[in-house]
């Protein structure tokens, strides 16, 4: 999502010169205060509790990194996010490509198909997947008619990945489309004139040029998947919980604020590291294109 933000935020140079009085800055203040009290302060207090609850020190972190159970959760969170990213990329790349070559009307339909679920309630869509994936659900019925299954899909990692991919696909499709629509298709013609078969031309020219979109999309999906709560909680198995579910359990169920906080710090740290990676990638990609 960071890519959307960068696209919208005006470049510093375009900003207007300062008013003599600094009144514009005052306009930011109410929002800033709200953000400080209801966003920054909560995050800080979470970090503090990670280091102080129940006793000051690194106890919560040594607990987190010494219990193999926790490391398994961390690993599972990573692999789940990775799977979601890979599957989303495989589905989104051809889809975004089709959007670039479609006519105006077909493109509008394809865009709508991506955007409508984007804004359809997360809770509703997760509920829908619960129904679809249940043992006697539609997916198993369909598989049954072609002689497969029934598979247990709900309360499995597969179910979690299926649901999360669908929920996160817009974040993959949109940056891919943004980059792909800027690729000059005449380059493919040019490659053809130099003796490259169409498939070869696509791999040599189109794919490398689409990589900025691939990395932006992948990192955005990966970041979002890392912190997902509702979908894994409802579609996944309690014994295969992800980091976000463990945090929920520690704080809401066990009232272990410190341990939950420590896990939160780990998750936040991971997310921020990925965002930094994203920022670097985007900047490099931007440089490569604009020179």
């Amino acid at each position, binding site marked *: 999502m960071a890519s959307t933000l960068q696209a919208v935020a005006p470049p510093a140079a375009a900003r207007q010169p300062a008013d003599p009085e600094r009144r514009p800055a005052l306009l930011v203040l109410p929002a800033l205060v709200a953000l400080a009290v209801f966003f920054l302060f909560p995050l800080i207090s979470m970090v503090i509790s990670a280091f102080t609850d129940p006793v000051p020190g690194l106890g919560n972190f040594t607990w987190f990194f010494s219990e193999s159970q926790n490391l398994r959760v961390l690993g599972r969170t990573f692999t789940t996010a990775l799977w979601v990213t890979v599957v989303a990329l495989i589905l989104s790349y051809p889809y975004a490509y089709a959007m670039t070559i479609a006519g105006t009307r077909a493109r509008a339909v394809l865009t709508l198909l991506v955007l409508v679920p984007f804004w359809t309630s997360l809770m509703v869509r997760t509920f829908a997947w619960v129904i679809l994936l249940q043992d006697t659900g539609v997916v198993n019925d369909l598989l049954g008619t072609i002689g497969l299954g029934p598979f247990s899909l709900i309360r499995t990692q597969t179910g979690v990945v299926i649901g999360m991919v669908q929920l996160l696909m817009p974040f993959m499709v949109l940056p891919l489309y943004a980059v792909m629509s800027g690729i000059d298709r005449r380059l493919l013609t040019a490659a053809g004139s*130099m003796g*490259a078969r169409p498939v070869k031309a696509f791999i040599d020219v189109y794919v490398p*040029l689409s990589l900025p979109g691939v990395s932006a999309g992948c990192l955005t999906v990966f970041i979002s998947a890392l912190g997902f709560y509702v979908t894994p909680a409802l579609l996944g198995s309690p014994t295969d919980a992800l980091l976000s579910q463990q945090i929920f359990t520690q704080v809401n169920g066990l009232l272990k604020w410190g341990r939950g906080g420590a896990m939160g710090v780990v998750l936040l740290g991971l997310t921020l590291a990925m965002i930094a990676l994203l920022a670097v990638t985007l900047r490099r990609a931007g440089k*490569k294109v604009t020179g």
Partner: protein
Amino acid sequence: MPTSNDLAARGAGIELTGLTKRYGDFVAVDDVSLSVKPGEFITLLGPSGSGKTTTLNIIAGFDHPTSGELTVDGTAIAATPAHKRDMGMVFQHYALFPHMTVAENIAYPLKQRKVPKARRAELVAAALATVHLGEYGHRYPRELSGGQQQRVAVARAIVYSPRVLLMDEPLGALDKKLRDWLQLEIKRIHGELGTTFVYVTHDQDEALVLSDRIAVFNRGRIEQVGPAEELYERPATLFVARFLGESTILRGDVTPDGIGVCARLLRAPGELSEKAGALVVRPERLAVREAGFSPDSEWNALPATVTGEIYLGSSRKLELRLPDGSSALVREQAGSLSDARGGDEVTLTWRVADSVLLPDSPDVEAVLT
């Protein structure tokens, strides 16, 4: 030291026969036949939408003819896909791969042909030397100026010694000065390589500078093919006369004795079966004499009024108005200027042999403007 000798190729002959391309009801290319000799530099010249680029794309294999034949060195290639035609193409917008360096761009067609690495490096160096960009191999296209990018595009298209080099308005995006210089570069490269060049442009000056022969396109058809001089001096149609260079056009009814213009009978070279005719005279073939001057029988004369003069250093242009309200353009070389001035009543004269009588086609102006 690698040179353009490494890249020399035997140019191929191209034969277009009855080539037609329809898009629905629209006929983009209409029964075009053209024979290009091996090693020739031929230019397809015409206004936008005249079918020249479509014809080029058909030769390249990017477009497929609705009907008609296309052979290269006697082999029919209409069914051969673009990437197997072994032609070079230089695109209007260069189409350099932005993610590859200049050297990688130029090596790309060689890689497709599985040329060994060492030989590849030699050929890339030779191509870069040919376009005078020896030290730019490691740069990215975006780090080059427009003219340099254009030369890279040329290098990339000639590096594998294709039998035919196709160029689609390659200088269209550059400014005038750069264009003039690159025209000479392209002509030099053509001379060094021996490849057949097919060049598309809408710029008549470019066509005149570069070409062995020019094919003038209009509305999907070829109006005339020939060397520049022939097209200029002996245009086959009014469209060619109007499109290539400046001319004075005198319209009138054709009779066996000549053509009636401004209530006078002018003598014309040759005859015409059509009734509506146009007598075409190039500005430097027209001369201005004093009012009432009457020349001998080799010459035609018309009264005229000078309405404007433009001094151009090496020459002077005079604009004249004829009695029927049409206008004429005279170019006088420095050193032989007449003393006519704006507002003067004069006599406009020219040798009958210096004019061309063509059938009038009233819609020519609509196409050109």
